């Protein structure tokens, strides 16, 4: 595809704005808290900004491309990732967990684990998290470079260096604040850049009714075909509700520091609590921007007119190309520049999110904890800046590894999913049961991860897993990889929960005094400072849940 000069001009203007925001914020960076994130009135960031950054940090290229791919592959059922997955978990984070994260004065999620449990639990979480952030930012760098190569014919190296260079420039100058401000800019760009596509696409296929007429019922209903696993996703009701709705979503949205960091950057406790709650309003509408193009694309292949989703070399549909193909098909030169800028923006917000979470965890939870305990603040500021650059260099290296050794990447991704699956059990017990001990938490996490690996080893789905079977029949065969992933998560969660409980009962708990502000029963409820009742956490949460329920019903 050939871009016109106008499209290039639009991309260039966007990049200029991104860099200028970093430069403008540079003068505000004086301490490590300015750079890595600190929470109080002075460092705090306005609520609407932290809220939009909260969802934008997660709105990476893989999410934008992946969700429209899933829309084409699984239909509107993909919205479960939002309406049963993310939203309830975000409400739980805001109402019940933020008071501990924000109130404990911990600077990161691993640091909360040290305060609540012990050093080894923090170390385990910090090291696995830091590795994961570098890995995911590298993989999205790789994905973007591949995309730009296919679309624009840019060379792999040029795309990687340009994108990583821009992210490096604005995170290095303005730190977390710059990443957050840019995430908000990128959020609007993604929404306004893709919304016209949804509009013309829907007009083309005759609106939602047109899609319903073209596609089978299982593609246009979220719940109706969930009675058994005989649906496009190959997941039953229990797997969906427990695996995705509870274990995976709560595990990700409530414990991932990349997201929690955005809420922790708010000005006060009330704003921190409300960050995920306010974020939930736009979040619940995002399926119409990111999933709907997939459904429209699929309907368009049915009505003819020359549109088709491209195929991979092996003859299967290349669903990941759904959104880019739609952009090229519908957008005239000019708007096409905006659409491509939106894709680049989604990648950058994802990468900057990972890099700014990495530099904080590295500086506070690894470097300060294990290498250099009592240095001056300016020392840690320097270390934070260095970690930003190193994080980006490691991401670039990861992108190159991903290009040559795709299997290693798949394996790593699998290992990370095992590490993440049990996390929420640890936090739930730690925050709401004061008897939970550090030994319980640590060994529970390791046990949960082992249980996840074991489950993967004795079951199969779509030819994957079953590596422990050595030729004998698998314990269970899942209809889809997703069904298997949800089941693994459930097993890991239960194993972690039971192990943590049992080991905690057998080991000595911390004194109550040491756990004030860290455990539900020993912490005063935060005083509500917001005067307008409808902006307080509980009414907001009620409104979010009611609207999500309505959306579930509307598309059931």
């Amino acid at each position: 595809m050939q871009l016109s000069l106008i499209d290039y001009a639009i991309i260039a203007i966007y990049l200029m704005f991104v860099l200028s925001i970093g430069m403008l914020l540079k003068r505000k960076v004086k301490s490590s808290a300015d750079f890595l994130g600190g929470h109080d009135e002075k460092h705090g960031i306005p609520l609407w900004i932290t809220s939009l950054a909260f969802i934008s940090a997660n709105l990476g290229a893989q999410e934008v491309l992946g969700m429209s791919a899933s829309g084409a592959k699984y239909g509107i059922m993909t919205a479960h990732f939002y309406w049963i997955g993310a939203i309830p978990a975000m409400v739980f984070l805001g109402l019940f967990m933020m008071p501990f994260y924000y109130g404990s004065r911990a600077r990161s999620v691993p640091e909360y684990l040290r305060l609540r449990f012990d050093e080894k639990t923090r170390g385990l979480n910090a090291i696995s998290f830091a590795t994961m952030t570098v890995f995911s930012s590298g993989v999205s760098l790789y994905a973007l470079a591949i995309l730009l190569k296919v679309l624009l014919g840019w060379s792999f190296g040029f795309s990687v260096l340009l994108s990583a260079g821009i992210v490096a420039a604005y995170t290095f100058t303005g730190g977390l604040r710059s990443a957050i401000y840019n995430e908000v800019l990128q959020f609007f760009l993604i929404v306004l850049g893709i919304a016209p596509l949804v509009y013309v696409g829907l007009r083309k296929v005759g609106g939602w009714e047109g899609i319903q007429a073209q596609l089978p019922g299982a593609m246009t209903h979220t719940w109706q075909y969930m009675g058994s696993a005989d649906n496009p996703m190959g997941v039953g009701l229990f797997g969906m509700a427990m695996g995705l709705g509870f274990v995976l979503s709560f595990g990700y949205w409530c414990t991932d520091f990349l997201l929690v960091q955005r809420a922790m950057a708010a000005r006060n406790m009330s704003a921190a609590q409300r960050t995920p709650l306010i974020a939930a309003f736009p979040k619940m509408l995002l399926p119409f921007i990111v999933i709907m193009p997939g459904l429209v694309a699929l309907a368009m292949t049915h009505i003819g007119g020359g549109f088709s989703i491209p195929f991979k070399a092996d003859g299967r549909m290349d669903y990941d190309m759904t959104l880019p193909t739609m952009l090229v098909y519908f957008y005239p030169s000019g708007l096409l520049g905006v659409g491509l800028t939106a894709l680049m923006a989604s990648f950058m917000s994802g990468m900057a999110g990972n890099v700014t979470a990495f530099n904080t965890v590295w500086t506070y939870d690894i470097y300060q904890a294990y290498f250099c305990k009592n240095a001056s603040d300016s020392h840690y500021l320097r270390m934070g800046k260095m970690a930003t650059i190193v994080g980006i260099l490691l991401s670039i290296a990861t992108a190159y590894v991903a290009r040559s050794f795709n299997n290693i990447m798949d394996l790593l991704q699998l290992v990370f999913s095992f590490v993440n699956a049990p996390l929420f059990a640890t936090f739930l017990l730690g925050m709401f049961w004061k008897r939970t001990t550090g030994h319980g938490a640590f060994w529970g996490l390791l046990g949960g991860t082992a249980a996840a690996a074991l489950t993967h080893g004795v079951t199969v789905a779509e030819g994957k897993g079953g590596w422990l079977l050595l030729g004998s029949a698998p314990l269970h065969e899942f209809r889809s990889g997703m069904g298997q992933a949800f089941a693994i998560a459930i097993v890991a969660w239960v194993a972690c929960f039971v192990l943590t409980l049992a080991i905690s009962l057998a080991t000595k708990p911390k004194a109550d005094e040491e756990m004030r502000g860290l455990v539900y029963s020993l912490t005063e409820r935060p005083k509500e400072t917001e005067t307008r009742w409808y902006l307080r956490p509980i009414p907001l949460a009620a409104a979010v849940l009611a609207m999500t329920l309505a959306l579930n019903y509307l598309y059931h």
Partner: protein
Amino acid sequence: MLNQLLDDLRFPIGLLFSIFSVILIIVGLIKPQTVAAGIDINLNVSAGAFMGVFGLFMVLSAMWSARSAQKRSQK
């Protein structure tokens, strides 16, 4: 005033979309391209207009709060 505006994220966001809006509307008017699929919309002009409304709203609301902050500090 300018300092306050630069501190307010609404200003750069609004400015960026206003610039995009102007570019899209001009391109759309000079080279009217209706959608390939045969739907009769000049997508550059209509999307540009929409971005313009959003951009202006952001810029104006940033200017409005900068002005009221200035008035408060004068008092």
